[in-house]
């Protein structure tokens, strides 16, 4: 008995430690921490140039672009390079007419300037002390790339998104399988990984890889802590599964608002490895960072599959998934298995959050928006089946990205323009969500699920 109490106390401490990371985070986390500080303001008037890449529908600053300011006569006044935030502040002697020129040769390969490289500032309209000029690259990429190149790119992106969804959904599916809980707060476990890794590596300046390992571990601890502190007592009290689902909704609301309070509502990027040029093999382009994360994720996924298939632990997990009572009567400690599943599932979710965060930046609601795709994935694969989650998550991720590329030979039919032209990027999650409804109509048990699970 004393052992159990000590055990629970340790788990409670683990949760507090996991949360403590978040609570102890400096409250000023909202300031662009880790980024190079803004250049000091000019004493007189100044021109701020901002260079951003928007090819993925999202602004990414470009560093090291040369910006030159010339006066009306064409003489060079001042020149400078953009910093990590894509900005450069150039001080000018007076509010007069200038031309601002971006040196296109300093752009990286594959970044095409969208619009004119030279912008003229009219002296009569130079009213504020600092004028801001925006340059964008990348909007024109779509037209320049051929269909097959775009398709390959989409497949590469889909591969990466698919792996992230698969990693995140394994936990969701295993938790469902072993405890029956549909955890609507699973997305927040994904966010947890991204946020903790970001706080450790960017705000506290710890080595990125070390931060990632710590974040994954803390994510796992959070999972175990939540199970010990919340879900296990609920199961013990005999709280119904529907009520537990509503509790998970409450937990999700609580966590996301906690993140917003401590971490702010903006997107924060990792500073490590974000200035890499893509490697090319034919039409395939991928940065070393993305290749590495993809390989690591793939190895982890295969590891999880092997663990479930081969090890005693995996067999026990599947047994508990199948039938808790039967598993318990054969001597499996199902409570222990459930704890392990929570640790594993939450740690994998945290890993997914870090991988996704490297790609898209970390936001307080990043996990919440992935949750829908995870649901689509595990429904496709079959609720409760871990392999189903792997396969289904992967297929859904691939589907989301590839659906943005249409089938050009498809006839031009009304209402089916998306099939011909591809889904607009901002709506790329919509077909996956529609697929979720369709799957339930056609084959509710999913690809790998068994029929008796559903009824």
């Amino acid at each position, binding site marked *: 008995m004393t052992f159990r109490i000590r055990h629970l106390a340790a788990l409670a401490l683990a949760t507090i430690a996991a949360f403590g990371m978040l609570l102890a985070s400096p409250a000023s986390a909202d300031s662009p921490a880790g980024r190079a500080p803004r250049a000091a303001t000019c004493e007189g008037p100044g021109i701020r140039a901002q260079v951003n890449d928007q090819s993925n529908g999202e602004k990414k600053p470009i560093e090291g672009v040369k910006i030159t300011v010339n006066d009306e006569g064409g003489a060079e006044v001042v020149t400078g390079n953009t910093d990590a935030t894509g900005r450069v502040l150039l001080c000018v002697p007076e509010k007069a007419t200038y031309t601002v020129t971006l040196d296109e040769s300093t752009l990286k390969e594959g970044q095409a300037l969208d619009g004119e490289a030279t912008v003229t500032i009219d002296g009569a309209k130079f009213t504020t002390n600092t004028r801001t000029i925006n340059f964008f690259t990348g909007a024109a990429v779509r037209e320049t790339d051929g269909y097959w190149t775009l398709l390959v790119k989409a497949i590469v992106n889909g591969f990466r998104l698919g792996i992230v969804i698969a990693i995140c959904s394994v936990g969701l599916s295993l938790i469902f399988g072993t405890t029956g809980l549909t955890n609507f707060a699973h997305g927040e476990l994904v966010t947890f990984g991204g946020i903790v890794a970001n706080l450790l590596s960017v705000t506290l300046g710890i080595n990125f890889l070390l931060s990632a390992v710590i974040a994954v571990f803390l994510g796992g601890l959070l999972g175990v802590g939540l199970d010990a502190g919340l879900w296990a007592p609920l199961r013990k*009290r005999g709280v119904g599964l529907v009520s537990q689902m509503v509790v998970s909704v409450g937990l999700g609301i609580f966590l996301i608002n906690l993140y917003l309070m401590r971490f702010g509502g903006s997107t924060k990027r990792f500073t490590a490895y974000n200035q890499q040029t893509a490697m090319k093999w034919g039409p395939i382009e991928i940065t070393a960072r993305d290749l590495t994360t993809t390989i690591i994720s793939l190895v982890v996924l295969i590891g999880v599959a092997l663990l479930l298939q081969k090890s005693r632990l995996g067999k026990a997990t599947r047994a508990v998934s199948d039938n808790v009572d039967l598993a318990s009567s054969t001597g499996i400690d199902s409570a222990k298995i459930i704890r392990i599943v929570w640790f594993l599932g939450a740690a994998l979710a945290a890993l997914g959050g870090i991988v996704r965060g490297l790609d898209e930046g970390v936001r307080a609601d990043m996990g919440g928006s992935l949750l829908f795709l995870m649901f689509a994935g595990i429904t496709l694969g079959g609720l409760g089946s871990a392999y189903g989650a792997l396969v289904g998550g992967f297929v859904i991720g691939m589907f989301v990205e590839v659906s943005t590329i249409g089938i050009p030979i498809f006839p031009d039919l009304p209402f089916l323009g998306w099939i011909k032209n591809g889904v607009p990027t901002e709506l790329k999650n919509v077909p996956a*969500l529609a697929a979720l409804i369709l799957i339930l109509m056609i084959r509710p048990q999913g690809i790998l699920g068994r029929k008796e699970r559903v009824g």
Partner: protein
Amino acid sequence: MDWGLIVDLTLKAFLGLDAVYYIVAALGMNVQFGYAGLLNFGQAAFMAAGAYGLGMSVSYFGYSWWLGLLIGGIYAAVLALIVGVPTLRLRADYLAIVTIAMAEMIRLIVRSVTHKDKFGGTDGLKGFAKGFQDLNPFEQGTVYGIGPFQASSTVVTVLLLLFYGALSFGIGYAVARKRKAANRTQVTLVAGVVMLGITLLITSRVNYLGAELWVLLVGWVLVAIFSLFVYMLMRSPWGRVIKGIREDEEAVRSLGKNVFGYKMSALIIGAVLGMFSGVLFALKNSNVQPDNYSRAVTFYIMTALVLGGLATVTGSIVGPMLFWALLAFTDVFLSEVSDAQGRVEIFGIELLKDSSARGQFRLGMVGLGLILLMVFRPQGIFGNRKEMALDGR
């Protein structure tokens, strides 16, 4: 700290429009979840259906106001059919997943740049509320008190007194019946007098702008109609079958009832109530904005419903009122104790770092509140614990 302000704003929220549109949506979710056991996590989608059905009909197609309402209702019912057909034969969690996914899908589409010409993107739709505002009997810009003694003419005072009196003694009678008191008249009188006192105290402190008061009046009338409707419905044979399905689906099926059909009608009734809620909210703001219909809204309504008590009409009315009163209280209280930058420190620990953190703090507490309610008092304030024996169907 200005306690007068805190009390006034809390009471205003207690009776205000936010509470009203939550009540209508909560009544709908109560029919689905409380009575029929159907977990709809996409009520926001049905609200959006009403709001966009009205807004699109009037400002995009140029139809009349009433046709817009009808179209919104049809749209909500069709959505309910679409989500219901594949999921109602399956376990409860499938409906939850599909409704939440559908709500997100609709929100993504209406806020997209691609369809900005039709749905107005993130700016939403405007200019559809004119037909409604033209009917407004109140002066738009005038502040009206709702207490009987704040009224300008004696006739209004008498009418308001009669109304509040009838309401108070009605509640007193309901209390007496519920308690099964032997001396029913006495209990009715005592409870009625107490209620009347509370009502007069509350209403004397609350006032609204004419424009708002009109929506509020219509809203409360709708609440009265729908509450009566749900109350009668659940006492009818139909309601008994629905509650039977929640308790034991197989038993009801073995009695020869078409369980699927009953579930589907419950889902559609809830959806249409949700649509009215969306319309009220759109009229309140005179615009429709996609981000007002995010999944968080559904969850907050769910919390308000659980707070009041599932499977009771009283719960769906009082729950949202208390929910908004608590939110308003927390907001005003925190803003009163915070410094000029909106920072709040308690025992040297920084609770809030700026004024935007106040909203997040409040909503975080909503989440915590939902957990605690479900764990320790799943029947809420008015519910019956026996009716909350929901399991994982």
